[in-house]
């Protein structure tokens, strides 16, 4: 976007009003966001620990030691593996669920559109702590609704949150339930921008539903899908609250995520320097992931 295209100029006294308009937000963001980020970055080169809370003289610069230590830390790799597992599984599943719901809701054949839309969106707005309480109960091995439902198919009770194999799938299921409504709305908006005539023309040429979806909907929805893909990636890499509340990272660290490991090192064991290093590794991963997605789409 080229700013010179604006014909309007702020004109006289512009500097003064510019400062008045811009500085409150910018200062707040600078002081309460950028300075903490930079401090955390500096902290990642120190051994800031619990002792430093008592006396600032106990801080030393240790260069890249924290980052080297990460490579040697099995728990870090477990957390990394779990986070990738979550992003790679829950990400696409959540996008597919959103797109399916959006297409269903955009169909002319659908009744009670606004009711459906509303009920799909409800999980997005509700408090995670509160819904986690219900989900913990849905997953209860003895009294939970899920095992009760599965028993109709002859599946014996599963200890969803207590079994290292099932805990992550349980978290994934809940995360998709909680988040798919948000992307669904964005997809609906994207679908509305596709001109109706394209479908009509295709129908005249005898295209079936799948053809229409494959040759019109998907390509024209590509920019929306990219946007959804990136925000989902960013959001899902920061997985924290679900395992924090539901499983505390367990059992056997099977749901320990990077952000949770960072929180644990930082606010449970007070190894703030180490914790900051984890944060910046995560940042690098998310950053790279977003760039790769952008590049991939451009090459298409």
């Amino acid at each position: 976007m080229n700013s010179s295209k604006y014909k309007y100029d702020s004109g006289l006294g512009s500097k003064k009003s510019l400062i008045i308009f811009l500085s409150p937000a910018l200062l707040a963001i600078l002081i309460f966001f950028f300075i903490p980020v930079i401090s955390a970055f500096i902290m990642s080169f120190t051994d800031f620990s619990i002792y430093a809370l008592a006396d600032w003289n106990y801080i030393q610069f240790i260069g890249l030691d924290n980052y080297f230590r990460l490579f040697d830390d099995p728990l870090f790799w477990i957390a990394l593996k779990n986070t990738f597992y979550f992003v790679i599984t829950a990400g696409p599943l959540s996008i597919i669920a959103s797109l399916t719901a959006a297409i269903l809701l955009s169909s002319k054949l659908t009744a009670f559109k606004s009711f459906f839309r509303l009920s799909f969106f409800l999980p997005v707005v509700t408090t995670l702590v509160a819904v986690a309480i219900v989900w913990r109960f849905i997953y209860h091995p003895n009294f939970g609704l899920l095992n009760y439902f599965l028993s109709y198919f002859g599946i014996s009770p599963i200890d969803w949150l207590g079994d290292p194999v099932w805990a992550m799938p349980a978290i994934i299921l809940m995360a998709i339930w909680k988040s798919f409504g948000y992307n669904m709305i964005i997809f609906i908006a994207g679908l509305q921008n596709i001109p109706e005539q394209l479908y009509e023309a295709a129908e005249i040429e005898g295209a079936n539903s799948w053809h229409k979806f494959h040759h019109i909907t998907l390509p024209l929805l590509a920019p929306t899908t990219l946007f959804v893909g990136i925000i989902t990636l960013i959001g899902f890499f920061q997985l924290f609250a679900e395992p924090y509340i539901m499983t505390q990272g367990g059992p056997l660290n099977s749901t320990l995520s990077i952000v949770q490991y960072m929180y644990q090192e930082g606010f449970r064991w007070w190894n703030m320097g180490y914790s900051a290093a984890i944060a910046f590794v995560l940042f690098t991963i998310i950053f790279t992931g977003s760039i790769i997605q952008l590049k991939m789409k451009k090459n298409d």
Partner: protein
Amino acid sequence: MYQVGKIAVLFLIFILGCANSENDPTVLKFWAMGAEGEYVSQLLPEFEKENPNIEVKVQQVPWTAAQEKLITAFASDKLPDVFQLGNTWVPQFHSLSAIENLSEYVEKSTSIDESNYFPGIWDTNVLDSTIYGIPWYIDTRVLYYRSDILKKAGFDHPPRTWDELYEISKSIKKVLADKNKYAIYLPSNEWAPFVIWGLQNNATLLKSNNSYGNFSSPEFKEAFAFITKFHKEKLAPIGMTEVNNVFQAFKDEYFSMYISGPWNIKDFKLWLTDSLENSWMIAPLPAPTDEYPGASLAGGSSLVINSKSEVKQEAWKLIEFLSRKKVQLEFYKLLNDLPAVKSAWMDSIFVNDKFLKVFYTQFLNVKATPKIAEWEQIAFSKIQQYAEYTVREVMTVDEALAALDKDINEILKKRRWLLDKNEQ
């Protein structure tokens, strides 16, 4: 939008107005964890009646976030005047200079006397021969066992030595002859049994003034190899998740022995009813040699005073009050928390209870874990991790203990630096 701005300003004023309010009597802030926080307020009216000039404000801190909460409170100078600490947390708060040296208070006190406490428990609150916390309630681990199964296996008494424990376990496995039934439950997500066995075998867990890991020592290695043998020979189940509900599993003979603390007595009583009512019992832990009973862990919670409190005398009064025999007994009745003062154990409730008698014996032989700030992290994140690797045979005993020491040395780096610094 102008309007919005005005409303915002009004809001800020409202908030500022809400922030401050002061009361006349001396306010004593007291934080306690979980159920203790909920029930302790029932004991306080009597204290306030005796001390009309003191108003105690109790706040309940959830156990799950207690550590975070207390340290952030310390960092922001918001710690209460008096608070509960798990006794293994005392070193951490001492290293922050957050808690008051209580030696003088104890010396002058007419009601709190060291001799009225179990020495092993009292010792967990002592750092550099100075006392920092007063035990409030105590716990330790004992052996829960199914006497009927042991009898079936040919034993009329619980194991007294390690060898006997192993023998009994093998016999149970043989008698039950079911590959889904085990002799003993030693979950690898509980560090306590692994550490207890080491302490029993006189292992020094950390060396050089607690600044290096020493888990590869022959004493610990022997103990660790002994306990992991139960998993390897299928005498103990490997995954902890196979047991959803320990009470159910104990009832179903999934395992016949379990090392746990007093908090489980109530639930086992609830689950094992009718014909099973007398089929289980508890016993002090077996020992490596003939000196029965073997040692267990000195657990429990202590009361400490914030070193920056302005009402330390009042805070001490509250600690004295909560340490009275009568109050400790009431607390036991409310919550089943075992009293810290020995005089309470002379009460008829305790003398006549078969379970409590066992705990009394065990409390006479309890040991403390290393008293350093980093211990919690070592126990919860590292020992459990490598115990898990060993029982699943991902690592051999030697490999696991070497890796454990390496990780611990990394954690203790800062401690070594501080020790060096203080020497200069």
